């Protein structure tokens, strides 16, 4: 059986859940293998085995942390050349969409972005995508070269499977061109103890209706009571009430959680672009005409400063009993 290469998402050895989702999806098309760029593969090996990785190709060294996207694309291109896999799967983050683009150019293959599901049909890999703000569902396939596909986190529930996850170091000599964009400094904004936005099963987002930076305490409390990540609309990040990295939408992150709660958010098209594939959507807004209600499975028309504290109290009661 051919291999299916999954690019691991990790932060220094801690593997992100989306990697297990990609391994779960990869199984239907061949032997899942992991491409690991950077440090931490030994630490991660047992977890990757639990989710059925047959092999882990490891490329570490400065190159993989010191430059923008090109090194990961070179690693994947060399694996494609070596093992002719059935596909290369990546998590659909802003960074990886770029890695996928560079890889596609290198190996002259078709690239599909933002899949929300993958299936096999007549020997082809069919990607499901949701376009035009969710109005149209498309099934697409790659018809030239090795399919390169980015998949949104939370597209599938990760399922364990046995794998050897044999570590196999690969030597990569980065080209000079790959070193053109050098990272000279990293500025990390703390996230605290909450789950990561892109991966979280529940996201609680606040909008302009929250009124102020202090008002976001309420959003954080609600998020914490549900074990959720916090998100924000652009109105909020523009006003500086909450950092930009929490922005959901066209120019923020795209999330697809089990539950998305929009609190004081109107539901502009650019916001919807980042959350409309969420499984269940709950909205609280005082304006009954707010477009967010068109998407909501459950909505409360009311003042969030009344509704949310009461909801918190109810959640407290229920978890206490």
């Amino acid at each position, binding site marked *: 059986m051919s291999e299916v290469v999954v690019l691991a998402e990790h932060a220094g050895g801690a593997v992100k859940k989306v990697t297990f989702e990609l391994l779960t999806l990869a199984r239907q098309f061949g032997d899942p293998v992991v491409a690991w760029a950077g440090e931490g593969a030994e630490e991660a090996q047992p977890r990757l085995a639990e989710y059925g990785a047959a092999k882990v190709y490891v490329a570490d060294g400065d190159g993989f942390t010191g430059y923008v996207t090109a090194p990961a694309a070179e690693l994947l291109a060399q694996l494609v050349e070596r093992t002719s896999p059935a596909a290369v799967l990546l998590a659909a983050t802003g960074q990886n969409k770029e890695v996928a*683009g560079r890889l596609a150019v290198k190996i002259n293959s078709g690239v599909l972005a933002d899949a929300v599901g993958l299936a096999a049909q007549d020997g082809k890999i069919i990607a499901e995508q949701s376009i035009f703000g969710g109005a149209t569902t498309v099934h697409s396939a790659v018809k030239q070269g090795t399919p390169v596909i980015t998949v949104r986190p939370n597209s599938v529930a990760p399922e364990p499977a046995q794998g050897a996850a044999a570590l196999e170091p690969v030597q990569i000599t980065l080209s000079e061109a790959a070193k053109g*964009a050098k990272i*000279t400094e990293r500025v990390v904004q703390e996230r605290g103890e909450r789950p990561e936005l892109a991966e979280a099963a529940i996201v609680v987002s606040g909008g302009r209706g929250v009124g102020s930076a202090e008002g976001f305490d309420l959003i954080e409390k609600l998020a914490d009571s549900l074990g959720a990540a916090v998100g924000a609309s652009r109105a909020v990040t523009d006003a500086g009430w909450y950092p930009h990295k929490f922005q959901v939408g066209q120019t923020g992150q795209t999330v697809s959680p089990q539950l998305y709660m929009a609190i004081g958010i109107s539901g502009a098209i650019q916001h919807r672009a980042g959350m409309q594939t969420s499984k269940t959507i709950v909205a609280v807004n005082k304006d009954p005409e707010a477009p967010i209600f068109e998407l909501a499975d459950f909505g409360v028309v009311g003042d969030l400063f009344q509704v949310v504290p009461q909801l918190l109290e109810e959640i407290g009661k229920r978890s206490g009993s």
Partner: protein
Amino acid sequence: MNIVVCVKQVPDTAGERKLRADDARLDREAADGLINELDEYAIEEALLLKEAHGGEVTVLTMGPDKATESIRKALSMGADKAVHLVDDALAGSDALATSYALAQVLRSIGFDLVVVGAESTDARMGAMAAMLAERLGVPQLSLASKVEIDGSTIRIHRQSEDGYQVVEGALPAVIGVVEKINEPRYPSFKGIMAAKKKPVQTMSLADAGIEPSLVGLANAATEVVDFADRPPRQAGTIVKDEGDGGVKAAEFLAAQKFI
């Protein structure tokens, strides 16, 4: 500095967007076209860089005749001239082909800096800066929320999932900008009048040295197998808060097993 800004015309996100039943291409005739809104930030950044460092701003658009509307708008914001790659053979090109075609034009017209938007509202690939940099063999400085040029060094703040990175490269380069970077200007009346006289050069495949076998729907590396309008979302339950909105929301969350 010779700055080229890539601008795409897209259907209005406020209107209805459809794929054509026969070939699953975006129905560009049916929808009102306008500049991909993220490209307005790319145009603004190109103009700011020109104002700071001198040079010339060229708009590059690949698209049907109709895309001239967007080109005029970009010129009215202050760009100096435009190149319009227009050829029926390009219709239906996917990301791989579009990046190839744009790269060929860029090679033939020359550049010190290419500026692109973060993504288009219709295709949403978000990979053009990376693909162009790969094809042209120049540094990729994308997802930029800040750009500084100092001699031949260019430095950006690159947005990342956990904050940002400072990234440096040498000109010539491709930059991709996010909307945090600036506030696009509105065309002035004078700008609109001046735009009418600014040169727009049209190029065909042959003019740009583009292989016809590498572009267009028939040669695309990806295909749409089928598509369907998503069934309208089942109308949700919307309740008015009568002093019990929080309790009702909790009941919904409990019924769905979230609490």
